[in-house]
């Protein structure tokens, strides 16, 4: 069991965003969380990655209790995350974006006097190569196209050599072509690096083509869980979610 969330509850000033949720992700799985807006998907991610501490319940990673740890500690334990809105360092160059992440992972950030430009070049360029951004290495990342920025974010996330990737709406705001190429990229990288995936997604074609396990959130609780075909056939799910979408 790679990731386990036990009886997690999260309330903000009386509003219950997550209500007694259990969730497990096994190694090598492509797990997906779906659900209508406001169902608590992003909150769930924030609980797992330490950006929020659950009001009740625990989070385990590799059977180690990580509840309440700081995000950077959780990241160092092998969890990678992309955010819903593109999350890069917009005024740094593409190279620097990835380099900062590589340095942090290699524990080389606390170095006050060595010129940074000479460090971890090889690793950084390897990552840029993986996502196809070598040619843009010296562009300012904020000026890149949206698709490139998403690829860059992927490289940043991979820099910490995670075992599990949490992707929050990886194709949000993308054109069909961009969606296809992004999903190809994710699948390729997950396969090459033997990554486990936990993602949220609104595009049902993507969900059913990638996921091998789907969890459906509704009003902060798990409504259904299982193999894609089981979830697709579940009448509750069809009523509250797929029915609306269709």
């Amino acid at each position, binding site marked *: 069991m790679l990731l386990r969330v036990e009886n997690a509850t999260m309330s903000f000033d009386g509003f219950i965003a997550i209500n007694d949720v259990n969730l497990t992700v096994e190694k090598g799985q492509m797990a997906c969380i779906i659900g209508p807006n406001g169902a608590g998907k992003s909150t769930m991610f924030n609980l797992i*990655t330490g*950006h929020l501490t659950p009001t009740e319940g625990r989070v385990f990673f590799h059977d180690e209790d990580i509840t309440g740890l*700081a*995000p*950077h500690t959780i*990241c*160092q334990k092998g969890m990678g*995350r992309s*955010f819903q809105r593109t*999350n*890069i*360092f*917009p*005024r*740094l160059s593409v190279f*620097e*974006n990835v*380099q*900062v*992440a590589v*340095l*942090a*992972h290699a524990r*080389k*950030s*606390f*170095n*006050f*006097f*060595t*010129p*940074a*430009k*000479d*460090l971890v070049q090889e690793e950084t360029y390897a990552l840029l190569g993986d996502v196809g951004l070598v040619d*843009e290495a010296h*562009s*300012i990342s904020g*000026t*890149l196209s949206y698709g490139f920025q998403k690829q860059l974010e992927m490289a*940043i*996330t991979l*820099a*910490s050599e995670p075992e599990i990737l949490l992707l929050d709406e990886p194709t949000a705001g993308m054109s069909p072509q961009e969606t296809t190429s992004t999903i190809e990229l994710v699948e390729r990288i997950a396969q090459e690096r033997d990554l486990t995936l936990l993602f949220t997604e609104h595009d049902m074609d993507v969900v059913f083509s990638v996921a091998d396990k789907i969890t459906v959130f509704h009003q902060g609780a798990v409504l259904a869980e299982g193999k894609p075909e089981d979830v697709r056939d579940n009448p509750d799910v069809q009523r509250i979610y797929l029915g609306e979408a269709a």
Partner: protein
Amino acid sequence: MEPLSQARAAYRDPVLWCFLAVMALMFWVPELIIYMGWADFWIIFLTEVFIWSLFAVAFNLLMGYGGLISFGQAAYLGIGGYTAGLLLKYIVWMNFYVALIAAPIGGALAALVIGYFCIRRTHIYFAILTLAFGHIVYLIAFKWYDFTGGDNGLIGIPVPDWVKDPTFANYYKFVLVITMIAVYLLWRIVNSPFGKTLTAIRENEVRADFVGVDVQRFKLYAFMIAGAFSGLAGALIMINERSVYPDLAHWTQSTQVLLMSLLGGVYTFFGPVVGAFLLLTLDADITQNYPEIWQLFLGGILVLILFGLPGGIVGFIQERDETSADDQVTKMNKLIAQFSRKTWYFFIGAVVFTAFFAILQAPDSWWISEDWDFELLSLVTWGIIPRTVLQAVVGAALLWWLLRGVRSYQLLFRWLLLAFTVLSLVLQMYLETPLSGLAIVFLWNIYCFYVLFQDDIRQAFSDGVPAAAEDAAREAAD
């Protein structure tokens, strides 16, 4: 990295050589000033510029690189000044250099304690907390008579005899060397992995956190480094005056350094140095004649920067209008169009500044100079209005013609334009514009030189650009 190879890397660092070269050049400036018979004031003035540059660069480590706007940075200036001052004053056997080293340590320790409380808060809360803690430091210095001397300050602090030479040249050299070393260290720091990571935190704290960076620790370290170097600057000010007053820690000093950084450009390393120099020269020029409008002027500059010059002056000079998607010709045309636009701004700025200082110096000489006998051939003796109009009209006509040549990439015009800006500087010298006005024209010189000699633009000039591009250039300019 092995120590040996690290030493070799430092040896190869071109920036280090630049620092050393500048230091060697500046080292003999006092001799030049004395030889030329200029006032000793300039030696003291430059010493102050060095110290404030150090303070501004240290402050900008927080503001520009860390995105942390501290409204209480003067606290560390004060702590440094008082640490060294109290040690020298009350401990008889205290060594001058030990006291000097104690100042940055004191600054760093104070920053550790205060930073521990402040860095967890972001934005406005950080600004207010640093303001409040800075005020606490000021109040302690102001009210604790038994220890700090209260508002009487600490006076008559003993310093070695060599500091006290009548021309101040010794202390100038001492400060030059110390600040050069300190600023070089800061340069290394901002370009180190620590500095890069700090910039990443400024850009996106949440993301930095989730690549595994311990954000709070980095901020605290940055706060301490800034505190240490500010403390050093405080001690240098204290030694310069041989006394220290609570005003050194007052929050108006914090905003002064903030203005220097903003004016010079917060996203550049040397921006604050330019800002410190400009602000201090402006201060000297304006306070000399009209001390009561100095704050008014500062406020005006601040508003102007915020509305029109967000990158500061160095940012203005360095900014390039480009996106990676453009092809070569479009890129060149955009850059040249931007260049011509900014040249106009500089020109207008220079004319306005000359007029402004002329008014300050001889307020009643509107139509005809009251101090000098009018001579047709001597522009200095003209009244402010005819002389400014003449400058504006003739200058604008020439500039328009020159820029037209530049936009069609004629090699000759590049040189002519450079000559034009250099001549403007000579003209300002002839008109006896004060130093700050000269500084602005000088920055214009630097700007033209900087842009026209960039590799790609130089290439465009020597190759010439196809006729199609020429038309496009004209369109872009219209």
